[in-house]
């Protein structure tokens, strides 16, 4: 006799059992859904996990990254006050003086802009200087030699024992410098380091008027010293004297944050891959559940409640999400091992990969949550199925609750917002991201709808059967046009945006083929050297583009409020950087091509007893809250100068020329201590090298910036970063392919019925193949073209608003992505339909029915 449960409710374990039984038999279909989410999870987990590892490694290696516990530094030589502070700390354990300079090499034609670092004492106290030969790290001071950046040694084919000319001294190279604490590879690329003994600096005679010299004092702290407190205590005094204090803790935090920003960007790219997978899940579940509605009706006939039937499939989806989350997480943890290979020396530390529990949990939970969230809307169909459907009574589709549907949609957007907020930590950016996603998806969905409507409206009835049938497939019931265009479009959009953005960045940095644009900048030219330097350039038949005087000064007061008062004022509206900034000011009576007057008048008349009229750049209006008519007092090397803002200029900072925040009229600063900046244009790298060599030989104090070389460095960095970004974007493409496979597969049964019907009516395989091929061709072209055009528009907006630079898009997306992705879509579509086309109709029907 059957013993009935009084509540007559099936337990959770039965629901689970039913979900498993059904899932087992639907394995193939569910496998594809799972794959849609696996790659997205893998992308997010790999970035997250690598970010956590990088942060941990930076924190762990913070002392050896900086080489000391804390340092006090400035661009000014220490005054009495600073010396007193240093003494109160027991005196510095080591000190360094550094500045950029040109160096040349004996017996070698090469010249190079380097960062000269004169070190005294036992720095680095943590970590070590890595050299080749290793002994050079300890012997260079005693030998009176230098350690030269390893890359420069390789580039210029130099060996230990060769000589290097630094200013007025020629010393042997003791070894090649592989790494030194406190110096990162990215910044060393422009001015690679040359390390020598502190005593030799004076002999170089390079420290003079206008030189950008930096003074560092290194300290080893007792274990128990509270570095944060020390920093807070010393900061006010140090700031007043233009000095700052940096501890290994704050320095590593800053470094961590810098990489965090890049990580956040990559996280978003990965998140888009995940979202794309979720769109695939929603579409696949939609078809899947449609097939299950009959079973739901039967279960309801047998007495299952709507909550029970809903739960069976919800559990199934959650299970797939869990499995997808686990596989994706494992894959992501493995993939992160590749990142150091992509980024190479852009990373500040050797990253030891460990597995973070938090990230593992996040990956798995994300799998479950995203699957359920995106499956919820199609899953809701099970709630509204009438059991009557089991009795052959077709009531038509039941009306879904609009409110519930809206709630699910709202839930999805709230989740996307919250997750992006968790990644970015900024409400505005997160909202912009959600909005961006919404706009991109809406535009692509709009394109798909428009396309379908346009075909319906302007259907080419005169076309042949094959062409007409392929077009009909695009808007028939249960078509895949929308989901395929979304999948292909988003993937293509991401990849081509990366290409275009790279173009924008490079266009901004690029100077090639621009007439009258300097590509050589000579800094620190002393007033008495300017004529000889100009002559040297002219002798080589090269044009001198600009020759500008530079006077250094600091802000003393604005409208009677001194800088010291402003420092103490917590309600000040002026940006802090201005209070310690050393302004490099020029004087002239004309505007340059890069400047436009936007406010006030360009006044060059200086009257005795009246403030000097100056012109400021528009960023100063923002950062210093200055307006036309404000009084500004500058400290010009001890002399206080009263000036008044007479005009505001908009400056195009992206132009490769010397631009200034403050411009004085002629007739005021001529007698102040000053130096010149001369710019010139060289036609090629060889002419540039010849000019640099000649100037270094004659004027060792002059620093030369070769913009062509800097561009190469920038390109190198962008190349490395774009490798990683492309790698992440390919996750989106791969996810798109899986979504595509899923979409093709789910519509396979319908296609089979149609193909069989057509073949029964006498259609040939070739004709059916053509219909299928044409349909996927349309989808491939439309999807990828929409994606490329959308990214073209987006990049143009970026170029206008963010980079403020003209943008010439690359042809790569049009020439490579468009045909590439179309062929891919075609191949996937056809390979899936081939079995249908090749087999006899009856066999196909029997196989698909079983």
């Amino acid at each position, binding site marked *: 006799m*059957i*013993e*009935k*449960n009084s*509540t*007559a*409710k*099936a*337990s959770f374990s*039965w629901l689970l*059992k*039913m979900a498993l*039984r*059904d899932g*087992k*038999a*639907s394995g193939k279909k569910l496998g594809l859904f799972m794959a849609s989410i696996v790659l997205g999870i893998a992308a997010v987990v790999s970035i997250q996990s690598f970010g956590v590892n990088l942060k941990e490694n930076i924190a762990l290696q913070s002392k050896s990254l900086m080489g000391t516990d804390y340092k006090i530094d400035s661009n000014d030589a220490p005054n009495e006050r600073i010396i007193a502070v240093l003494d109160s700390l027991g005196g510095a354990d080591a000190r360094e003086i550094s500045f950029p300079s040109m160096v040349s090499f004996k017996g070698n034609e090469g010249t190079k802009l380097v960062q000269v670092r004169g070190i005294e004492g036992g720095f680095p106290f943590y970590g070590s200087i890595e050299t080749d030969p290793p002994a050079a790290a300890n012997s260079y001071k005693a030998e009176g030699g230098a350690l030269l950046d390893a890359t420069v040694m390789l580039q210029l084919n130099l060996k230990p024992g060769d000589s290097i000319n630094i200013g007025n001294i020629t010393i042997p190279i003791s070894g090649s410098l592989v790494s030194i604490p406190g110096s990162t590879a990215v910044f060393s690329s422009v001015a690679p380091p040359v390390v020598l003994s502190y005593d030799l600096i004076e002999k170089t005679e390079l420290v003079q008027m206008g030189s950008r010299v930096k003074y560092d004092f290194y300290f080893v702290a007792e274990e128990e010293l509270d570095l944060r407190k020390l920093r807070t205590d010393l900061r006010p005094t140090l700031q007043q004297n233009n000095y700052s204090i940096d501890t290994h803790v704050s320095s590593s935090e800053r470094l961590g944050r810098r990489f965090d920003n890049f990580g956040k960007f990559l996280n978003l790219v990965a998140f888009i891959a995940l979202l794309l997978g979720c769109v695939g899940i929603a579409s696949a579940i939609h078809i899947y559940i449609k097939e299950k509605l*009959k*079973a739901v009706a*039967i*279960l*309801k*006939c*047998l*007495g*299952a*409640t*709507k*909550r*029970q039937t809903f739960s069976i499939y919800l559990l199934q989806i959650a299970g797939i999400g869990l499995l997808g989350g686990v596989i994706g997480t494992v894959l992501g943890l493995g993939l992160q091992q590749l990142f150091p290979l992509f980024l190479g020396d852009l990373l500040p530390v050797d990253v030891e990969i460990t597995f973070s529990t938090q990230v593992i949990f996040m990956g798995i939970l994300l799998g479950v949550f995203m699957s359920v969230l995106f499956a919820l809307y199609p899953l809701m169909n099970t709630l509204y199925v*009438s*059991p*009557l459907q*089991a*009795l*052959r*009574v077709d009531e038509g589709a039941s009306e879904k609750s609009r409110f519930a549907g809206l709630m699910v949609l709202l839930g999805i957007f709230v989740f996307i917002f919250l997750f992006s907020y968790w990644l970015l930590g900024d409400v505005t950016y997160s909202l912009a991201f959600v909005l961006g996603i919404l706009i991109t998806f809406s535009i692509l969905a709009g394109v798909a709808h428009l396309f379908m409507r346009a075909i319906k409206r302007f259907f080419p009835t005169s076309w042949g059967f094959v062409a007409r049938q392929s077009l009909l497939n695009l808007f028939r019931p249960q078509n895949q046009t929308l989901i395929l265009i979304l999948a292909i479009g988003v993937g293509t959009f991401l990849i081509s945006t990366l290409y275009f953005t790279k173009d924008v960045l490079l266009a901004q940095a690029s100077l090639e083929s621009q007439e009258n644009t300097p590509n050589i900048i000579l800094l620190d030219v002393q007033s008495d050297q300017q004529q000889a330097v100009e002559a040297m350039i002219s002798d080589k038949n090269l044009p001198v583009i600009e020759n500008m005087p530079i006077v250094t000064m600091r802000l003393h007061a604005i409208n009677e409020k001194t800088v010291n008062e402003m420092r103490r004022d917590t309600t000040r509206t002026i940006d802090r950087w201005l209070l310690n900034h050393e302004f490099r000011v020029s004087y002239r009576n004309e505007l340059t091509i890069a400047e436009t007057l936007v406010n006030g008048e360009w006044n060059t008349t200086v009257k005795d007893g009246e403030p000097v009229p100056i012109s400021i750049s528009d960023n100063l209006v923002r950062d210093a809250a200055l307006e036309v008519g404000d009084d500004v007092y500058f400290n010009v090397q001890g002399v206080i100068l009263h000036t008044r803002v007479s005009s505001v200029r908009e400056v195009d900072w992206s132009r490769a020329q010397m631009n200034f925040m403050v411009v004085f009229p002629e007739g005021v600063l001529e007698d102040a201590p000053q130096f010149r900046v001369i710019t010139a244009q060289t036609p090629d790298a060889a002419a540039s090298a010849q000019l640099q060599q000649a100037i270094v030989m004659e004027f060792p104090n002059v620093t030369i910036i070769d913009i062509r070389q800097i561009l190469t460095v920038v390109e190198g960095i962008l190349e490395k970063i774009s490798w990683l970004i492309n790698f992440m974007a390919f996750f989106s493409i791969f996810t798109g392919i899986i979504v595509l496979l899923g979409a093709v597969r789910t519509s396979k049964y319908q296609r089979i019925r149609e193909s069989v019907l057509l073949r029964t009516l006498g259609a040939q395989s070739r004709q059916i193949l053509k219909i299928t091929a044409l349909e996927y061709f349309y989808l491939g072209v439309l999807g990828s073209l929409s994606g490329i055009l959308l990214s073209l528009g987006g990049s143009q907006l970026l170029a206008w608003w963010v980079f403020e630079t003209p943008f010439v898009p690359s042809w790569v997306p049009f020439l490579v992505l468009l045909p590439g992705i179309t062929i891919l879509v075609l191949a996937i579509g056809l390979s899936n339909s081939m079995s249908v086309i090749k087999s006899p109709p009856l066999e196909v029907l029997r196989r698909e*029915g*079983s």
Partner: protein
Amino acid sequence: MAKILNIEHLGKTYRSGTREISVLEDISFSIEEGETYSIVGPSGSGKTTLLGLCAGLDQPSSGSVHLCGSELSAMTEDARALLRNQKVGFVFQNFQLLPTLTALENVVVPIELQGIKNAAKVGMDLLDKVGLADRFHHYPSQLSGGEQQRVAVARAFSNNPSILFADEPTGNLDTTTGEKIVELLFNLNKERGTTLVIVTHDLELAQKTQTILKLKGGRIAAKEKGIA
């Protein structure tokens, strides 16, 4: 004998655009416990709609349905599902087995829904009764039409129902197999005392029941005694 199903002035209309279509009008009859009953009529006469209303699968537009002592229109959808699960069995024309479940799993669904522990044993006994014990692990697609309908019959009796509704149970089967299924249904009806309600257009099958209700155009055309 007590009435297990009592229908009074039952009506059902559907809306098609702005038009209202009446499928059933003023239907009244009752069935007693253990009785065999058939509903016959031409296509479109409203047989299946009537069956759906009797079993609580749909709500009537007018009138009332009392099933096993409960007034169905006063019950929620979940309460009606519970009633079906405990008191009602179904056999469908298209068998309606769950394609992703094996024969045994299909049979035990109604009793598992009740939370019964020894479901597999009950299921195997029933499969044995319909002669398919050795095919218990087969999926519906691996069974013939007749075998599928035998599994459906086993499932219909698995919850020991008070009333069993059969919708054209032989409609998709050849004559010999159909006869076997009918025999099975009537045998189990006798053995367990289950009320049997069959919807069919097969007058020969209808004659085997105690009462025949003839429908025409959504109304009762006649009510006759069968030869049983």
